């Protein structure tokens, strides 16, 4: 078996609004339009990622919250109906996908060996969280590539953002090791928004774009700073600033997924491609792709 590699990493936010606006056949509610810059960004990113023919997507989602350890999806097949508890009016999605169980087991073993508390989720009745479903749909609506899901254990962030990030760095390294060991060509998805202050009421028509804007200017400034660092290939600096970003922009990255992704990618020093940026009920969202192979080729 050849050594596996992480062939790409994507910041893949999961607002259900994007799936709703697209009128995905798996989703029951229907929309007129909405959030096009983000959706078109996803389309471009999807084209790039799928062209590389990944064997598996590994997704870290802030909406599978656990406290006792990091949990890994450990059943061969997941089928079900995902209803967003916050936006049930927008997202009632029938999903079905295969899990790369071999890689999941390998990840579980690797985490354990690294001294990271971890658990396999082996209950066949488990409903996969809506963050995982939305991000995976947006990157591969055909669902024809297996998935490995990792829960978000944010308990280390109770101490401080710095302590939380340390745990996520370890998780990222263990993920990379597991991928290498498994021989897979893996694409990693960090399922989260950037700045995350949001409106607390919904407009009468959810897709009314005249009501959509970033929550406040400070958030926009932070998002642009973060995206600027990504585009310049300064991820070490981004990771150093992450605790402030979380604190000041109430970023959804506080659940750890972006730190996990940066760490798994070996803290990229090459430019990322920002495919799209836009606000969803006031939060800042970007679709961003890291392409390690291309970076090597052009270096």
């Amino acid at each position, binding site marked *: 078996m050849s050594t596996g590699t992480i062939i790409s990493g994507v910041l893949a936010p999961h607002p259900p609004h994007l799936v709703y606006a697209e009128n995905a056949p798996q989703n029951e509610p229907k929309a007129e339009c909405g959030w096009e810059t983000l959706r078109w960004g996803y389309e471009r990113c999807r084209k790039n990622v799928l062209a590389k023919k990944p064997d598996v997507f590994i997704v870290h989602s802030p909406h599978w919250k656990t406290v006792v350890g990091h949990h890994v999806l450990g059943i061969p097949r997941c089928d079900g*109906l995902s209803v967003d508890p916050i936006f*049930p009016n927008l997202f009632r999605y029938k999903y079905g996908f295969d899990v790369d169980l071999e890689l999941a087991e390998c990840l579980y073993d690797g985490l354990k060996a690294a001294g990271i508390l971890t658990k396999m989720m082996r209950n066949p009745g*488990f409903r996969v969280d809506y963050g995982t479903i939305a991000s995976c749909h947006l990157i591969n609506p055909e669902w024809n590539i297996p998935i490995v899901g990792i829960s978000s254990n944010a*308990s280390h962030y109770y101490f401080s953002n710095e302590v939380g990030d340390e745990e996520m760095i370890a998780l990222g390294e263990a993920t990379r090791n597991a991928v290498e060991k498994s021989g897979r060509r893996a694409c990693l998805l960090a399922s989260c928004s950037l700045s995350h202050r949001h409106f607390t009421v919904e407009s009468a028509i959810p897709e009314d774009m005249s009501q959509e804007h970033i*929550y406040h200017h400070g958030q926009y400034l932070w998002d642009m700073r973060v995206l600027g660092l990504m585009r310049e290939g300064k991820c070490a600096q981004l990771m150093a600033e992450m605790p402030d970003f979380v604190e000041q922009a109430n970023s959804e990255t506080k659940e750890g997924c972006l730190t996990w992704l940066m760490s798994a990618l070996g803290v990229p020093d090459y430019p990322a491609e920002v495919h799209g940026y836009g606000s969803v009920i006031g939060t800042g969202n970007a679709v961003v792709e890291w392409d390690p192979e291309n970076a090597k080729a052009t270096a």
Partner: protein
Amino acid sequence: MSIVRGYIVPGRPHPLLAPEKSPAWQSLRNAYDEVGREIAQLDADLMLIYSTQWISIIGHQMQADPKPVWTLVDSEWHELGEMPYEFNIDAPFAQAYCKAAQARGLHARTVAYHGFPIDTGSVVALKLLNPDNRIPSGIVSCNMYADRGETLVLGKAAADAVRDSNKRVIAVAVTALSNRMFTQEIDPKEDHISSEKDDEWNRKILEILEHGRLEDVSQHARDFAAQANGDQRMKAIWWLAALMGQNNRYEGRVFDYQPIWGTGAAIVGLTPAERASGDLEFDEEDVEVYTGDRNVLSGAGTVADEGSEVETSSTEPSIDGAIHAEKAPRPVGAFPHARRVGDLLFLSGMGPRTPGTDEIPGGPVRDENGKPLDYDVEAQTRAVIANLRTVLESAGSSLNDVLDITCFLIDMKRDFPKFNAVYAETFGPIGATRTTIEVESLPTPIAVEFKVIAAARQNVS
């Protein structure tokens, strides 16, 4: 009609799914079962649940699917097994509760979707307290940003809906007390409260609850939450206290107090009683209406603000016959500007405040520190009459239709002659009956207020 009993119960699934694994969880299960038997004797019409595990961020949600069916697997405790459920939800009550919440300025909506993820806390409580679904139930969400004011208003809206429903209701707050979970694997047999300090705080509030002093605990919930990491800042207590009437007149019973994975899990019953226990100390302000100032997100001029503005200035009657006049000054409490019953129109007390700005024509009667100011009672009286005209006209009536007026003055000696002269200009020819009373003060720094009953015109709906 009334709340026949209130309960506080824990929402983690261990007593339901794995009591045998730990003496603490078994003990909680026994207490849960005992309460279930007690409830079966209460002849209740509705079990109303507020669960800290049903988190909402866009206002509050009320479950309105009459028959939700699902098999729940907890996202953290999946290894404990499945929780199949089929509940009997009182959907009309959910609608009524939602309307009552909106009438008090809250953003609220009902949800009725197949597969909507009912939270573990609600499922555990309903399965254990109402195992055969004999009592129809209601479930309301816990807004993660809501603070005391908003949660009190949510509780009071529940009380409004309960009062109007004529039902005998059991109120259930599903919440942990101290909420510091162990983040490592533990031996369930050795489960214990994660710190001695949390344990002491839990015991303290349980002692107060055992004395039936729910409102005292509600007043101290902030302190408790800060000290013991109370579950969702302990806001379930605010909801329960507001729903049950904000007093200390209960018979309290602590059925059990145990750890679940380090958190404080208590089962408490509160029965309304005549006797008052101890002194009632209100340290915190009371709130009747939510005014949309939940500015957790520190932005201004947002969609959120506009949304709540629409709700408070709506002319749509939300309660039968209630009239909210768009162009009249905003009421200072949870009441409409007027209410129509048959041929009569009853107006709420009307003062001189300028609609929109709340300025007082002729100046306020005292400054912010309570120092008396010189004011113009004639200007105030004219402003009152102008405001009355606005409300009457928006209800399809007019000043000419006024039948009876009660006038309140804060300084009869100083103000009566001038007030009386201005009054006569408008109401002299109309000939409404009138009573004038001196009162010590009015809710805002004004000198005069009118309470009016008018004839309602037939052709206006």
